[in-house]
């Protein structure tokens, strides 16, 4: 079968980090990774695609289980070098239904369908001669191949591995999926492209696309963060009560609802960020958003026709002024604008003193006014920086964590981080928007986008993608 796009099968001994490498190269945290060998039982394809068009495809495969038996079978066939791949094909065909060779079939099939070989070994453990059997089988397939030295532990046996691997593979590279950066990722892809001349162009296109993808992730993160700060700062919580005055229980209720809503917003944004960076299954530990040192005032208020006392006073005063001004106008200003002034005074005073009575008036069985406690928009000027700082830190950590990481990830922000992300220029740029968010005014079309751009710039600087 002729491959339409470059394919690469990640193969090797069991438990040497094949799945970790695939998870990192495919930016996929759904790959099962564990210390127990045999976690991968079926090969799995990870295509890099843009709008459904596959640019290259990676295969995660189970490890060799009965390599010596496979090689023994192959070596029974005394054939010239160019016929060796046919023998491997014959092995696959003959043992397809043989459960004993299930893992070998799973790993050999994509290779025989044209996939380049990426042979993975653990450079933190000593070299063993038994690996030569596996390398020999791979040589029989006749497919272009390279070796990747993974480092599961801190010890280093790379030199002895290199010497052995260079006997079998054109290229030997070191790659640590737990610490790999975008540059390392790109560098490995470039090496993979070298396996076959016709793969160079599509893999290079993939590299460009991958860089664009990272840019997309940054943009989408900035969008989520901008929305989080806007929604949180401008959030207003109302708690209606039906007594003359709000009691402590009402005040506690509104405060706890308000805080819970803010926390929920932060949590859902974090979830969104994790999904953007393909870390939907991240197992993390983090301290909860606290409101220490923030005075969260709840204002007791009432409304008549949906207008607060202040709004009603202004409305009544303006209406009075308009009526008075009409009289002034009819008298061509000879009243020295006294009509307008008096009208405003009468309207405003009337609304001020009559507000409570008006709110009690019943129309068709319903009172015209309602009493409530109101909390928000967030007046504390530091709050948006605290929230944004936490969100940026979380995003930075999520963006940098390996997709192969499966243990609990602690997100604990250190104090120095604030100085790293927030300089005076950024603070000044952000403050303008925070002020707008606090005002409760409707946003202009481009405003949130501009705010998002500032966040994106900060993220880009911190994440360095």
């Amino acid at each position, binding site marked *: 079968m002729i491959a339409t796009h470059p394919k690469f099968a990640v193969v090797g001994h069991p438990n040497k980090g094949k799945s970790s490498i695939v998870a990192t190269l495919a930016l996929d945290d*759904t790959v099962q990774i564990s210390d*127990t060998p045999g976690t991968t039982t079926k090969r799995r*394809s990870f295509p890099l695609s843009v709008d459904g068009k596959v640019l290259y495809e990676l295969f995660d495969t189970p490890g060799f289980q*009965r390599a010596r038996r496979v090689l023994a079978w192959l070596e029974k066939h005394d054939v010239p070098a160019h016929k060796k791949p046919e023998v491997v094909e014959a092995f696959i065909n003959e043992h397809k239904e043989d459960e004993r060779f299930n893992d070998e079939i799973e790993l050999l099939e994509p290779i025989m369908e044209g996939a380049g070989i990426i042979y993975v070994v653990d450079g933190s453990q000593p070299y063993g*001669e038994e690996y030569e059997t596996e390398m020999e089988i791979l040589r029989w397939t006749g497919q272009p191949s390279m070796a990747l030295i993974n480092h599961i532990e801190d010890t280093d046996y790379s030199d002895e591995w290199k010497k052995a691997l260079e006997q079998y593979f054109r290229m030997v590279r070191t790659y640590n999926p737990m610490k790999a950066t975008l540059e390392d990722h790109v560098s490995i892809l470039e090496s993979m492209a070298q396996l076959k001349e016709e793969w160079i162009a599509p893999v290079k296109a993939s590299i460009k696309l991958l860089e664009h993808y990272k840019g997309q992730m940054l943009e989408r993160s900035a969008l989520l963060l901008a929305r989080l700060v806007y929604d949180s700062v401008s959030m207003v919580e109302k708690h209606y009560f039906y007594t003359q005055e709000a009691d402590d229980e009402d005040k506690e209720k509104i405060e706890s609802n308000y805080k819970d809503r803010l926390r929920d917003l932060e949590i859902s944004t974090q979830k969104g960020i994790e999904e953007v960076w393909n870390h939907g299954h991240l197992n993390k530990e983090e301290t909860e958003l606290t409101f220490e040192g923030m005075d969260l005032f709840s204002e007791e208020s009432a409304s008549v026709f949906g207008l607060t006392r202040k709004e009603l006073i202004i409305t009544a005063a303006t209406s009075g002024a308009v009526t008075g001004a009409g009289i002034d106008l009819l008298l061509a200003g000879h009243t020295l604008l006294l009509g307008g002034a008096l009208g405003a005074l009468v309207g405003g005073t009337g609304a001020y003193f009559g507000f409570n009575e008006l709110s009690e008036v019943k129309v068709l069985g319903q009172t015209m006014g309602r009493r409530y406690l109101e909390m928000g928009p967030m007046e504390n000027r530091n709050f948006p920086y605290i929230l944004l700082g936490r969100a940026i830190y979380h995003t930075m950590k999520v963006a940098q964590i390996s997709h192969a990481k499966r243990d609990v990830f602690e997100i604990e922000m250190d104090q120095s981080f604030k100085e790293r992300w927030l300089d005076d220029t950024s603070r000044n740029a952000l403050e303008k928007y925070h002020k707008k968010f606090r005002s409760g005014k409707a946003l*202009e079309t481009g405003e949130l986008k501009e705010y998002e751009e500032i966040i994106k710039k900060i993220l880009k600087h911190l994440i360095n993608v």
Partner: protein
Amino acid sequence: MNIRSYVNLYELLKITPSTREENRAFGITHVMLKNRPIDQLSAWIEEHKHRLKRPLLSETFSSYLYRVTFILVLIAFALGLLTGIGLLSYSGREPVNVIYFIAVVIFFPLFTMLLTFLAMIRASSSQNVLIHLSPAFWLEKILSLMPAKMEERLQTFQINPLLTNWTIIKRSQIIVLFFSFGLLLALLGAVVTKDIAFAWSTTLHITPVALHDFLTILALPWSEFVPAAVPSLELIQQSQYFRLGERLNEEMIAHASQLGEWWKFLAFSTLFYAIVLRLLMFVFVSFGYRRALERSLLTLKGTNKLLREINEPIISTHAKRKESTFTPNEKSYAQIVNSLDASYDCIHGWAIPYKKLLLLGDSLQIIAPNYFEAGGTNSFDEDAEIISKSHGEVLLLVKAWEPPTMDFIDYLNDLVDKVDKVIVMPIGTKKNGYDASDKEIDVWDSKLSVLRNMKVWLKR
């Protein structure tokens, strides 16, 4: 693009009717709309509208708006008509003072248009006092208090304050326009059905010449086309009315037939200042309303994300097929050996070279008559020969860091058929003093548990 589109989009974004892939597919099939976000949104709304609950909130909302506006328009028209009739009421004893009518058809519209301009400037503020002055705002508030007048869905629907303000501003123009139609109809009706004597009168000291100059300026927009609708100085002089004095009788009675000529000026004043200017204002407001609608659509929560999903290519690196869940064997191996004997019948090393085996035996202070290297680069015949030479208790040393493969299990199975007991001992690296870590031993433990052979023991 109208208010219904806004409400539909608001509802659709809440139910997220399409996946990211579907949105991108929409972007690809509607490539001609690229860089035209409003058109993209309109087309997207049309494509997904059928997924919304019936009756559509947008239809309920626009029908509610229509009903409220219609009621207000009727009230405004009736008010205009009644105001006109009131202003033009003529008993035959005293002439009708045109100053009142001029105030209502010229200065009132100009003043309300000024307020409209101010309201438009402050339209982005959610607490816009000028908006609260509008009758449209108040009637809605009153209607919302009436039980069962508004659907529950409508009450929970939150519309952008900017759009609310522009909706009220736009509807206010229609309402005032119909008020002006009422005035004009009242004027025309009064002129046709009555012989009205118009006059002008004011307590202020305004000369006929000053008033003429002023009215000529007011009549500038139509003076070229309809000169008869511009009051002449003569008419102004003849129609000045004093409540006390002799002049009334002489002047007015002498020119009684000419006093009715004022109606042309009044009719054109109404037509131009109250109707034409208001229509222009309406057109102007409609542009602002449309802009506000577009802004509201683009700032609606979720729109930005949707547009990104439509326009950005989907880059995927994920596996399409879900991986079957692997459940590791949690059972501990029951057959554990904690300390080794001083000697064994055989020592086998799985992929451990013979020399290294001797060294390990020495290091562990164990003696055995036979040491064999199994597995590794051995052939199966060589392994079979090793097994045939083995008997009694065998200590099988394995590299702890290399997980057991099925090749090893096959060998072990063959070996236990031949010997009495096999003790599998994982050995660590030289760097670790040949000590295997617990984690490494656990891996072997787990594999041997699956084997379940009474002859096989694990050294921990």
